Every structure is written in structure tokens, then in C-alpha cells.
């Protein structure tokens, strides 16, 4: 039974261009009480902007209604659970926003002299220190603007170190359960990619790894816990095998929400890793970002970190630009500063014990869902999982209903879908990550919804395949949209 949503008013809204009618304005200026000046004559014609052709003209209330209506078409964590696996869609506490809007931070300018930027620099310094401690690493750069950007930075650091040792090497090893950005990163950094098949328990197979690690291998990129939510129990051995051959261990920190306060990658052999502040540290996601993907490294990689580096002498902080071995800048100025402020606010508001609690709640929530849904959905990997759980649609597919269709039906129940068809090693994957945000009431509603859909699949699969029904737009034709995309509105 659908408990969470009922039909509600959701209004259609055309494009602003279609609403336009000539002469409408959202403002009214008082009559000119000084002599008129010809702008082109005074400033030079080349400095005067022409009117934008076809720019929509609407009244103030029309503009406000337009955007307000559009905003009601969205689903957000502020409405309810957002179990999109691998994305860690946790609630962004409002205190983060309040801190980031502090006048001295919100209006700080990157060209301000260092003497007037000490507060901002102190924030960056504190965040670097906190992230290094959480990860068990020696140094952190805050420059990368997102996770994949952090990956590229990390692999370029490895390349720089190996080059200095005389040979940048040729290959990067990547498990077949990895995020797609990992092989993309390796390729952009000039490395060939070699896939490692996952073992039956979903981890890296040690015997295979031992065979594959040759003097050609620069690094292994591993996500821990991996995309099945399973911790690599052999991670210390994995690091040893790599280090013995002079290769490095890169960790994709996308799943750090399962580890913060409990286990430190630096302690289990990781040489370099990135964090997604917009996942683990509750800053806004993706399009609502911008993101931040700080990179944490062991001492041996520190000289290669992007310039400038923060340096402290006594109480004073300064930017150090003279770093001959640095890979150079990877981002203008100092990273997405506003995001960094939010992440530090989150860390300080929680404190060490609070962060640890958040991790344990995230894992508890995922395991609670796993236990409740196990009787209804196929669980292809039964190893103990952490902050997320991956089911497969195998049972439902026998009745003709696939993971994507179950996800669409979930929308009718008032939830954002889980992650569909990823990781690729699970056929018909349904990847669920509740995060620590949810209390038991919302999680129970989600579980009820999933069980209810499992039963609908048995009694009326055709109905499920036609979902969603409660949305303002019915099922969209994704295939035609991808094959023949219309990317630009034309009158």
C-alpha cells in the first residue's frame, strides 16, 4: 500500500520563452530626472551591449511562479529518503549553510592579501588537518573540485613520484566492481587499464593480484568498502603485494561514509586517496554543488601536491608557491572554498565521537534494510556488507520485471529510486544506501514500499512495468531521448 504520497497539485509550466509577451517587465523605474546621455557616444560603441534577441519578457509574479512551480517538480533529500546507492545522499545540515554565509567568508575574495585572509586560510588549514587525521594520512590538498578530479590528481601524483624514481610505469589495475571514473582517470593520466575480476565474495582475489602486479604496474585503484558495500578484508595484504613491487595503492574514498571514525585508510596501507566532501561530509551534491574532492597522501607524495600549499609559521599562515616538484595547479585559486567551509562545519559540529556515530548509524541502517528485504529480493553476494546493500532483480526478472521498472514504481511510493544496474558485476543490480540520515520510521516506510512492490510483481507485473502513475509525467521514452535528443528549444 502506498502510505507516503497522495496526488497533490502539481502545475504544468511552459518555458519562460513561451510565456513571454513584448513589453512586459518585472520592474518599473522612476522617470529620468537628469539629462539623457548616449551610452555609445560616451563609452564607445564597442563597449555597449546590444539587447539580447528573443529574451523573454514576463512580469515579476510570472517569473516567481515559473521558478517556484519548477522547484516543486523535483525530489530532494529535504522531502524524504534518497537511497541512491554509492552517492551517499545524506541530509545537508542547515548550520553548514549558515556558517558558509558568514559575511567575512561569503564575501572573501581570492585576491585579498594574505594578511586579510588569515581566517579563510585557518579554515582550510583546519580542514586539511581534520581530513588527514580521519584518513590516517600525512598531507591533504583541497584543490580538486570533485571526486573524479581528485582521482586524476592522485594518479598524477603517483606518476610524478614514479617518474622521479626513474620509470612512470605503464599500467593501472582496477577491479571490475569499480566506479567508471577509475578507468577513465587512469586513461587520462596516460596509463593502460587492466581489469581484475572480483572473487566470489566480491573482493580482490589475492592470487590473481599477485600474478598481475609486475614492474609495469604503477598502482591499483581500489574502492574500500567496494561498490558492493563489502570491506576488502585482505586490504593489508593487497598493499603489501603492491609495495613489494614498487607499485602504489590508490583508494577511491567514495565509500568513506562506512569508515570515518572506525578505520583509517592510511593505517591499512593506502598511499593516496580522495574524499568526496559532497558525499561523506554533507556538502551539496552534483548540480547543486559545486563539489570538492580533496586528496590525502602519505609523506612520500607530499612534495608533488598541487601548488600553492598552506604553510604555517607561528600563528601566521602563508601560501607557498615555490614547490619545484609539484604537479602544478589543478584548480584556479584554492578549490571550492564555500564547500570547504561547509565540510569543516559538519566535522566540527559532530566532533570525533559524533562522526563515529554517524558511520555506525549509516552501516546499521543499511544492514537493517538488507535483513528486512532479503526474503523478497535476491542477494547475489552474501558477504557482510557495510553502508550499502546490493540486491539483484533475479526473482522479479523471471516475471518480466527488471530493476529499472521496480525503481520507477518506487517513485509512486514517494521515494527517490535506488541506484539501478550498478555495480556492473551484479546482473540487474538494485543498490540501496540509506545513509545515517534516516530514522527508523522513514526506513520502515521504504521497506514496506519495497515489499509491497515485490508482491505487486507477483500479482500484476504488467502494472509495475507501466509505472510511475502518481507523477506529473508518465514513463518517459528514455531510448528515443538518448537516440534523438532535442537539446535546444526553438520557437
Amino acid at each position, binding site marked *: 500500500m502506498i502510505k507516503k504520497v497522495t496526488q497533490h497539485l502539481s502545475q504544468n509550466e511552459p518555458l519562460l520563452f513561451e510565456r513571454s509577451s513584448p513589453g512586459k517587465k518585472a520592474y518599473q523605474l522612476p522617470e529620468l530626472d537628469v539629462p539623457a546621455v548616449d551610452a555609445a557616444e560616451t563609452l564607445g560603441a564597442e563597449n555597449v551591449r546590444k539587447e539580447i534577441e528573443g529574451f523573454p519578457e514576463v512580469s515579476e509574479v510570472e517569473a516567481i511562479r515559473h521558478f517556484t512551480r519548477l522547484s516543486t517538480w523535483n525530489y530532494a533529500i529535504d522531502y524524504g529518503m534518497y537511497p541512491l546507492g554509492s552517492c551517499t545522499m545524506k541530509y545537508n545540515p542547515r548550520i553548514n549553510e549558515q556558517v558558509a554565509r558568514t559575511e567575512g567568508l561569503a564575501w572573501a575574495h581570492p585576491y585579498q592579501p594574505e594578511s586579510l585572509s588569515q581566517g579563510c586560510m585557518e579554515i582550510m588549514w583546519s580542514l586539511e588537518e581534520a581530513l588527514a587525521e580521519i584518513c590516517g594520512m600525512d598531507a591533504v590538498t583541497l584543490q580538486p573540485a570533485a571526486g573524479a578530479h581528485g582521482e586524476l590528481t592522485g594518479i598524477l601524483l603517483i606518476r610524478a613520484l614514479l617518474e622521479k624514481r626513474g620509470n612512470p610505469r605503464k599500467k593501472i589495475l582496477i577491479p571490475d566492481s569499480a566506479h*567508471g571514473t577509475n578507468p577513465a582517470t587512469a586513461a587520462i593520466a596516460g596509463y593502460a587499464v587492466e581489469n581484475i575480476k572480483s572473487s566470489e565474495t566480491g573482493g580482490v582475489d589475492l592470487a590473481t593480484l599477485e600474478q598481475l602486479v609486475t614492474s609495469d604496474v604503477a598502482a591499483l585503484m581500489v574502492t574500500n568498502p567496494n561498490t558492493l558495500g563489502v570491506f576488502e578484508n585482505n586490504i593489508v595484504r593487497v598493499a603489501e603485494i603492491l609495495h613489494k613491487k614498487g607499485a602504489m595503492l590508490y583508494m577511491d574514498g567514495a565509500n568513506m561514509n562506512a569508515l570515518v571514525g572506525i578505520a583509517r585508510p592510511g593505517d591499512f596501507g593506502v598511499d593516496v586517496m580522495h574524499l568526496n566532501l559532497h558525499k561523506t561530509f554533507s556538502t551539496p551534491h552534483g548540480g547543486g554543488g559545486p563539489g570538492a574532492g580533496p586528496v590525502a597522501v602519505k609523506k612520500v607524495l607530499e612534495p608533488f601536491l598541487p601548488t600553492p600549499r598552506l604553510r604555517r609559521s607561528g600563528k601566521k599562515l602563508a601560501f607557498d608557491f615555490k614547490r619545484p616538484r609539484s604537479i602544478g595547479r589543478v584548480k584556479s585559486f584554492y578549490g571550492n572554498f564555500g564547500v570547504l567551509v561547509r565540510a569543516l562545519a559538519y566535522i566540527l559540529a559532530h566532533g570525533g565521537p559524533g562522526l563515529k556515530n554517524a558511520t555506525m548509524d549509516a552501516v546499521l541502517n543499511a544492514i537493517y534494510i538488507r535483513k528486512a528485504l532479503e526474503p523478497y529480493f535476491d542477494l547475489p553476494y552474501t558477504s557482510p556488507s557495510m553502508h550499502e546493500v546490493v540486491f539483484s532483480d533475479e526473482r522479479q526478472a523471471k516475471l518480466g520485471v527488471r530493476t529499472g521498472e521496480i525503481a520507477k514504481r518506487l517513485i509512486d511510493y514517494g521515494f527517490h529510486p535506488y541506484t*539501478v*544496474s550498478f555495480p*556492473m558485476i551484479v546482473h540487474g543490480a538494485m543498490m540501496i544506501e540509506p545513509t545515517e540520515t534516516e530514522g527508523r520510521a522513514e526506513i520502515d516506510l521504504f521497506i514496506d514500499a519495497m515489499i509491497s512492490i515485490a508482491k505487486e510483481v507477483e500479482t500484476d507485473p504488467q502494472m509495475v512495468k507501466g509505472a510511475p502513475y502518481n507523477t506529473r509525467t508518465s514513463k518517459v521514452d528514455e*531510448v528515443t531521448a*538518448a537516440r534523438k535528443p532535442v537539446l535546444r528549444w526553438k520557437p
Partner: protein
Amino acid sequence: MYPENYRYTKEHEWVLADGGTGTVGITDHAQQELGDIVYVDLPKVGSHVEAGKSLGSVESVKAVSDIYSPVTGEVVEINQTLADAPESLNSDPHGAAWLVKIKLDSAEEIQNLMSSADYLSYIGAEK
């Protein structure tokens, strides 16, 4: 379903050798797994491809997947119709929706690949 004169790879490509030229495509099983295909990226005519290495990619609504060349040689022709009609990979993967034609460096290479019977039992086991 799986023509007996074709040879198959574990990565779900097929090749049909005719004289010194091999026609390459993806299998019906591959298109089923991928779902609706929306874009195909093929190599340039004249480029040299190696068996087991990527020769291009197919994009479906689910994911982008590499196509691994079953054979080594020079690309002599690519299937131009796929640019406008990628959906033919879903409807006729073993026929009209071939991907590339490759001038084979070695005629023996395809002997290492699976027969249709072997491929059938391979995909049976994979499930």
C-alpha cells in the same frame, strides 16, 4: 540463433572470416545484456587493431561498454549505417548491424575463438 560459421569471444563479439577479411559484430546475448543501444563509437578506417584490445564502444541506456576486437589486423570498412540507426544492433546484431571489417594479419588467429556450440554453453554457464 548463433550462426555456425561465426566464431565467438568471451567478451561477446563475433567474427566471420571470408578470405583474408573478418567481419566483426556483437552477439545477440551482448545486445540483450546491454539493453537499448543509443550510440556506437567505431575506429577509423585504416587503423590497426589488436585481438583482445578495445576497438570502440557501444553506449546503451544503461552503460558504455568497450568492444574488444576478436582479431588482429587493419580496419578496412566500418558500418556507416550505425551512426544513424544504432537500434539495428538490437534488432539484427548478427546481420545488418555488423560493426567493422578487418583485413586479418593472420588467418589462423580465429581458430582460438569459440564455436557457436561452445559459445552457447559459455553463456549458459555465465548465467
